[in-house]
């Protein structure tokens, strides 16, 4: 009888720990398993699928432009804009200007990829001449100033800043004010916004990323909060439309929310009815003497350059 009780006690302890671990895994751990490819996981974009001179590259091609000669500007940029600046390189640069080996651009390559934070650091440090990004953060502008650089921001296209939820979330649309209130901590549960009783997990991005800078601007100075206990709830996040729809492959588990009842389509971005549209930019140091920079910018703003922007999946300025 005693042995039975002892074995039952041991079994209860084992089962207790197993149940606790299973609960943690199901509720929290499972959510953090990244399903993107290893390249997407490491670099936020499948660089090898959008290289400028690969035959199988997914970029928009242009054969009409005259190639630049002489001192070619080193270009860099955000993951979300990699296909479009790769297309500019394809149009204007000779093939031997780009060198990509073992999953990275070589140091002498005129095309680089360091994502938003790295690209703004590179243009401030002088290791990149033109970078393609969303608007810089105040810290990035300050860093450039400290390095003696005055950044010129040239709008080259439009993009929607989008809010994402799980596909099973019944909420389809929020107002701008509701989204701001969510991130300010005013709303705690989706039921307050027409959804289920799940907690709202208002996910934020890394400081200095294009998305986080855009979100800070969207909040208009209001402070953002994240409830640590909301990790068991249902999330809302943000990004740029093309990054979500065009670059990340199968994202069937998510959906984009409408804002003020307007969906983030190319048509609504172009006509200005989507309330969170913003420009993306070619950024360079005003004092950079490289004579090819104005030629590169002129091409991007030309009819052909804007066709590339549009056919790459973004919204052009024209």
């Amino acid at each position, binding site marked *: 009888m*005693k*042995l039975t009780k*002892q074995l039952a*006690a*041991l079994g209860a*302890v*084992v089962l*207790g*720990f197993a149940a*606790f*671990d299973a609960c*943690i*895994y199901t509720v*929290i*751990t*499972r*959510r*953090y*398993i*990244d*399903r*993107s490819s290893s390249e*997407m*996981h490491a670099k*936020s974009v499948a660089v090898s699928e959008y290289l400028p001179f690969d035959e199988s590259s997914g970029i928009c091609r242009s054969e009409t432009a005259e190639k630049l000669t002489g001192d070619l500007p080193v270009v860099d940029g955000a993951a979300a804009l990699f296909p479009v600046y790769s297309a500019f390189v394809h149009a204007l640069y000779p093939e031997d200007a780009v060198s990509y080996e073992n999953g990275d651009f070589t140091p002498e390559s005129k095309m680089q990829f360091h994502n938003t934070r790295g690209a703004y650091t590179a243009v401030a440090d002088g290791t990149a001449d033109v970078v393609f990004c969303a608007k810089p953060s105040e810290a990035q502008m300050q860093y450039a100033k400290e390095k003696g650089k005055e950044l010129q921001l040239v709008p080259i296209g439009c993009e929607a800043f989008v809010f*994402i*939820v*799980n*596909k*099973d979330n019944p909420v389809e649309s929020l107002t701008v004010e509701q989204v701001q209130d969510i991130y300010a901590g005013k709303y705690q549960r989706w039921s307050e916004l027409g959804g289920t009783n799940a907690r709202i*997990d208002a*996910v934020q*991005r890394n400081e200095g990323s294009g998305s986080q800078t855009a979100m800070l601007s969207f909040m208009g100075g209001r402070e953002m909060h994240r409830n640590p206990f909301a*990790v068991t709830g*249902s*999330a*809302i*996040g943000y*990004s740029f439309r093309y990054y*979500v729809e065009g670059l*990340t492959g199968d*994202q*069937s*588990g*998510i959906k984009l929310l409408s804002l003020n009842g307007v969906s983030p389509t190319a048509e609504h971005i172009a006509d200005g009815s989507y309330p969170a549209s913003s420009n993306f930019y070619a950024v360079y140091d005003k004092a950079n003497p490289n004579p090819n920079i104005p030629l590169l910018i002129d091409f991007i703003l030309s009819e052909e350059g804007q066709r590339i922007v549009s056919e790459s999946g973004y919204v052009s300025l024209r």
Partner: protein
Amino acid sequence: MKDKTFRRLLLLVTALGLLSVIALTAYTWYLHGECSVLSYIANGG
């Protein structure tokens, strides 16, 4: 089973259980730093 043996076994099982919780927590924390926001939301977050 002797009481002493039972206590040792109970201690061992508890220690292993705590280790499994610590390992799972560390693994979750590692995934937290690596997971993209899109995957997190698609996974039901």
